[in-house]
């Protein structure tokens, strides 16, 4: 237990350099990016003096390193600054936009897992057959269709033509589960497809690998039933690489959410980011990317910790 805590602390501490790197990258890129929030804020006809005045008020006239320092000092006190446009602190803005993204990513991850894992196992068990090849072919297709096309097509199909689901928008969970879900299903499907394709492939290959292992044979020799072998003996071992992919593609999900949220008009982190980039709302962009980076690293930390529960061999060995 003590070791475990130590391990945990170590992993958490190892986030610091990553976050440092992220903060520098983000800060540099943002400030290298042309486009001036003051100009955006003041609209088309603003005069140069007005712009200059606003820049001063926003602190944009300071040298870059000073701006960075101010930001880091703030961040250390969990103060990521305030949005230029939204009249709210960045942390609050992020919290306000977090719900939809969390729901969306969880739902699409769930859809992905629910489809992908059984199909992957199925394909692994029928390796080499037509069924296997067609499943794999479809999954390759799933990986090569751009997200926005898929989004628009599902919207056209299920929203406009069939009218089963609303085309866009969002209702919070407080509006009721179905109300909440009905807005999220289409985006989650279009977002989850790529994910599902990837997980199907990983599941298949890692199941195949595991099924070749001696302990599967030895379980058979013990008289274990086939079904139990697949789900009890094989899958748990095969789950590790799957989990890794799930953790790693979390970043991909958020990236996908950028486009999906734009199309389906979901007020989540992705939309917040895109809007903020368009508006050059520096504090928000910095805050969001920083936050996403923490979430990403955190999720992968969680995945790493999960490894240990799933596979004792990995426990604490990674150092």
């Amino acid at each position: 237990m003590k070791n475990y805590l130590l391990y945990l602390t170590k992993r958490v501490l190892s986030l610091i350099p990553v976050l440092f790197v992220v903060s520098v990258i983000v800060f540099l890129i943002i400030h290298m990016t042309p486009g001036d929030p003051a100009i955006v804020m003041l609209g088309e006809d603003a005069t140069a003096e007005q712009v200059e005045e606003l820049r001063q008020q926003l602190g944009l006239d300071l040298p870059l390193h000073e701006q960075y320092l101010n930001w880091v000092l703030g961040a250390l006190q969990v103060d990521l600054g305030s949005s230029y446009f939204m009249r709210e602190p960045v942390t609050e803005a992020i919290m306000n936009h977090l719900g939809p993204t969390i729901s969306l990513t969880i739902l699409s991850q769930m859809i992905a897992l629910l489809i992908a894992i059984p199909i992957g196992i199925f394909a692994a068990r029928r390796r080499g057959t037509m069924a296997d090849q067609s499943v794999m072919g479809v999954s390759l297709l799933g990986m090569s269709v751009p997200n926005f096309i898929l989004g628009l097509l599902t919207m056209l199909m299920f929203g406009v033509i069939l009218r089963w689901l609303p085309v866009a928008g969002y209702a919070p969970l407080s509006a009721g589960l179905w109300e909440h879900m009905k807005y999220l299903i289409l985006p989650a499907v279009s977002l989850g497809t790529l994910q599902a394709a990837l997980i199907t492939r990983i599941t298949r290959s890692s199941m195949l690998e595991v099924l070749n292992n001696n302990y599967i044979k030895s379980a058979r020799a013990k008289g274990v039933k086939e079904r139990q072998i697949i789900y009890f003996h094989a899958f748990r071992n095969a789950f590790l690489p799957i989990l890794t992919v799930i953790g790693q593609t979390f970043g991909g999900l958020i990236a996908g959410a950028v486009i999906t949220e734009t199309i389906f008009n979901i007020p989540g982190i992705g939309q917040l980011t895109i809007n903020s980039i368009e508006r050059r709302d520096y504090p928000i962009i910095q805050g969001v990317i920083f936050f996403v980076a923490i979430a990403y690293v955190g999720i992968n930390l969680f995945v790493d910790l999960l490894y240990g529960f799933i596979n004792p061999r990995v426990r604490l060995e990674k150092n």
Partner: protein
Amino acid sequence: MSLQTSTPVLEVESLKKHFVMTGSFGKLGGVKGVVKAVNNVSFTIHQNETYGLVGESGCGKSTLSRTLLKLISSTDGKVKYANKDILQLKGSELRHVRRDVQMVFQDPYTSLNPRQRVGQILEEPLLIHSIGTKKERMEIMSDMLEKVGMQADHFYRYPHELSGGQRQRVGLARALVVNPKILILDEPVSALDVSIQSQIINLLEELQAEFNLSYLFIAHDMGVVRHISDRIGVMYLGNLVEEGPTERIFQHPLHPYTKALLSAVPVANPDYKRERIMLKGEIPSPFDLPSGCVFHTRCPFAEEQCKTEVPQRTENAADHFVSCHLYH
């Protein structure tokens, strides 16, 4: 052959290799334990001699051989070769020594790069030491391949297309192409069945005669060791507990562990029956070596003294050394 008349080529002096198992944060996280894989081992290999090293699995034989070549850092001790301490060498000097002291690894399945063909594997050491032109190298390799009893069409095979015995021979050929003086052979035959095993042993003997090689031969098959070695060292938990000429060890084993080992060797004769010395007790964890004599937890003859005092190495007969309180 008497030790006095031959020249030593490799002298190992109180070699130690301790693996420090650290917790999290590297050393900051605290040392979880120290595995004393090799603990104060000294011996000498002479010209044209085969030194057999036996011992329980996990007693540190492989670690010892890897430490000799500085493949892993040593904790303490000296390995003298040509008036130099290998452990202190660096850069090109070390590379030179490594050309003379070659190693054949324990596992023929993993010690060959699976993506290189036999030809490439053999050419590699020649390239490393910039030996010969392309044509000359080709000749050297073909020669060597022939010598280890393989055929020209093996040249373009991948390791996995070879049988275990053939792989072992490729490993041997690789070690031999650069004309080494000393060969360290880490269990070169234990993964093989008897018919392949005998091919390799014969080859080694022929090569030794031809090139005046010295061998450090690690194995756990007592039959093989007896067959090939001039002298034998017996290791137990990182310590060299007994050392002596082959015949002497087999006829008059002194250390209780050596005795147990010899008595447990299965004999290919259904009528052969003999008393086996049963070793009782737990094998101690290498993390936590017993005090006194490391063998006392399993020794049928252990006394009080064994638990507290580390036995000294004594010469019981000519060239026959043992570390055991029974022989003081």
